[in-house]
């Protein structure tokens, strides 16, 4: 035992003397977590931090057109560009041709035009023109979705207006009015809105609402389409996005670290240090044990530091369920260590170990859900992902941090991780016995 401790002490000494190893293990992961936090941070706050830029032209004289313009102008989501610069650097307001050109040149991804006949008698609703450049589907979908959401939720009377116009057109002026009143009553009855409000919407109060006032709750739209969203899990989590992702990142970094340290065995072999060690009163078994324990403890420390960084930078709450977090981290570190040892047992050189490692880590991380949730993946991939260390570690960490799971909830995860560790350790011991490495 004393020999094993001496060997572990040696490995830590080597680790600290290798500035690159320390950087790769701690500094770079933390730096990446900061960078990714900055890149993806918006998802967390519903996209309010950055505004979407779109070109905008209003050719309509109708009050609705004006209203849309005002609503979008004051929205937190959009920035409207209404002019462009000509060759002489002069700002010129868009017209129908120049705004299309603006999109074509790639100056902006999309343009919204309210045509002169935006609200004609013949149309059911509002007619808007949307020009876009499909170079970025995701951005397009976002802009479109946000536009619809903004216009619909802020200016619901557009639809009523359209409906009324249709009724008048089909039924003639008088019966049309009568129908409208009937409709208003019926709608009002079912949706608990004052019918007067429907036949004659209080445009001014709507406009004040458009600025995003808190009375938005009463908006007509929301009364019609009442989607009660109730968050069941994680409502107290300060930073849901980071809390959900931190496990995946940490696992990936852990695997990289353990691949690197396991290839250290090859360095020691190549230089002849392994021969020197085995010529001293040290057995192969002791060296293997020391490597296991060293890698496991290093992996544990790394995870702990990464989670602490998460706690500091993103307010991830690691302390309220700390014991269970430690347990799942130990299980994860054990499984990953076994993985690293397997790599060194099946490889002949450090380069080989790193090559296999890189492939397996990237495959396991993507399939296991470290990069995006497994629920997005095809069924058969979801099945495969259950065979990865990353999946069970991440899910266990998620249970602990997100659902505040107790020991019994994560026992299956710990059991499976330890099971995986035992399985691949027996493979590597069988390989080590063959004597390729020592």
């Amino acid at each position: 035992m004393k020999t094993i401790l001496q060997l572990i002490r040696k490995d830590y000494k080597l680790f600290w003397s290798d500035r690159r190893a320390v950087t790769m293990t701690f500094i770079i992961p933390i730096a990446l977590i900061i960078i990714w936090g900055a890149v993806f941070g918006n998802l967390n706050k519903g996209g309010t931090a950055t505004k979407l830029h779109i070109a905008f032209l209003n050719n309509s004289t109708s009050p609705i057109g004006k209203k849309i313009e005002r609503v979008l102008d004051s929205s937190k989501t959009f920035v409207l560009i209404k002019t462009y610069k000509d060759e002489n650097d002069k700002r010129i307001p868009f017209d129908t041709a120049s705004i299309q050109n603006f999109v074509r040149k790639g100056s902006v991804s999309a343009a919204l035009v309210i045509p002169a006949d935006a609200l004609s008698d013949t149309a059911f609703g509002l007619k808007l023109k949307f020009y876009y450049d499909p170079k970025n589907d995701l951005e397009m979908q976002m802009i479109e979705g946000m536009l619809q959401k903004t216009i619909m939720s802020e200016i619901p009377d557009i639809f009523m207006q359209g409906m009324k116009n249709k009724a008048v057109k089909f039924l003639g002026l008088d019966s049309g009015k009568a129908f409208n009143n009937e409709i208003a009553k019926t709608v009002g009855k079912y949706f608990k809105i004052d019918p007067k409000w429907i036949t004659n919407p209080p445009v001014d109060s709507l406009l004040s609402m458009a600025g995003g006032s808190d009375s938005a709750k009463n908006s007509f739209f929301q009364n019609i389409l009442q989607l009660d969203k109730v968050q069941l899990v994680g409502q107290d989590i300060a930073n849901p996005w980071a809390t959900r992702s931190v496990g995946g990142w940490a696992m990936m970094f852990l695997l990289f670290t353990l691949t690197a340290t396991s290839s250290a065995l090859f360095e020691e072999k190549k230089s002849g240090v392994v021969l020197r060690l085995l010529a001293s009163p040290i057995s192969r078994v002791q060296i293997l044990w020391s490597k296991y324990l060293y890698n496991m403890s290093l992996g544990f420390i790394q995870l702990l530091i990464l989670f602490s960084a998460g706690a500091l930078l993103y307010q991830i709450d690691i302390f309220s369920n700390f014991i269970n977090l430690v347990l799942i981290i130990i299980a994860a570190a054990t499984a990953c260590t076994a993985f690293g040892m397997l790599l060194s047992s099946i490889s002949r050189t450090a380069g080989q170990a790193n090559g296999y490692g890189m492939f397996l880590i990237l495959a396991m991380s993507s399939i296991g859900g470290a990069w995006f949730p497994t629920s997005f993946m095809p069924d058969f991939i979801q099945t495969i992902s259950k065979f990865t260390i990353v999946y069970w570690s991440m899910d266990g960490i998620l249970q602990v941090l997100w659902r505040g799971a107790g020991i019994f909830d994560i026992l299956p995860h710990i059991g499976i991780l330890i099971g995986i560790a035992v399985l691949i350790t027996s493979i590597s011991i069988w390989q080590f016995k063959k004597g390729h490495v020592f």
Partner: protein
Amino acid sequence: MIKINSITKRYPTITALDNISLNVNKQEFFGLLGPNGAGKTTLMNLLVGYLNPDQGDIHIAGEKVTQDGLHTRKNIGLVPQSLALYDDLSAQDNLDIFGSFYHIEKNLLKERIKEKLESVQLYERRKDKVKTFSGGMKRRLNLVASMLHDPPILLCDEPTVGIDPQSRNAIFDYLLMLNEQGKTIVYTTHYMEEAERLCKRIAIIDFGKIIAEGTIDELIEKLPYDETILITKNQVTKGKIDLLKSFGSVVDEDDHFQLKPNAGFQLSQFFSSLEKNTISYKFVELHKPTLESYFLHLTGRRLRD
């Protein structure tokens, strides 16, 4: 002290050691001389129990060497052929680590480290990382790193490859001193000068077999001639090769012919014959036979190409 009994060691593609038996006595400076790939390192690795033999056994100080038997290793210090050091650590840290596995009392280990560093003139550089050392310095450190537990037996596997004459001499003197103090030393090399200078007794190993064993004088005495004769290669001598061959076997070397005389060879006869054939004495040089000539005699090859 070391008894090697009918050892055979096979690698997948080659038999590295073929039924080898050797004895090394206590306090002996024993040389193992052989060309590249002869099996010297393999034998050393068997002696420390790093490898298991396919046949035969080895006893050191009466104890059988096995892969799991850690006790015999306390009696042995192995100086590996490669520089088995941690480049990123200081000389002192290296010794501290390698010494720690022998469970030596802390202060004693500290004292030994200082003493060993001083004895190979590395004490001033003890805090520097090994990677900043010269080849010779690394070799010297590699040597003392195997001796912190003060073993009675030292196995040196080519401890002087690729270093300057000064470091080499320092290592020679140090080893001779240790031998005088009573240590048993086994020394492998493919430099016959090293074996001649250091070793009392040697074994010559080639293709995994011991082809000769004895003191240097014993081996040279077995040669059927007392000296070798070198004849400078030039227009004149090249034409007289048949004449040379009538006196013994001739080996064609880079810039000269080497003549190994036949039995019954007489120098006076040889010189008068040269005179008759107008070959100047200037082109002729007499040599005392060496281990090199002995190896050549046994194998028809030189130790190093």
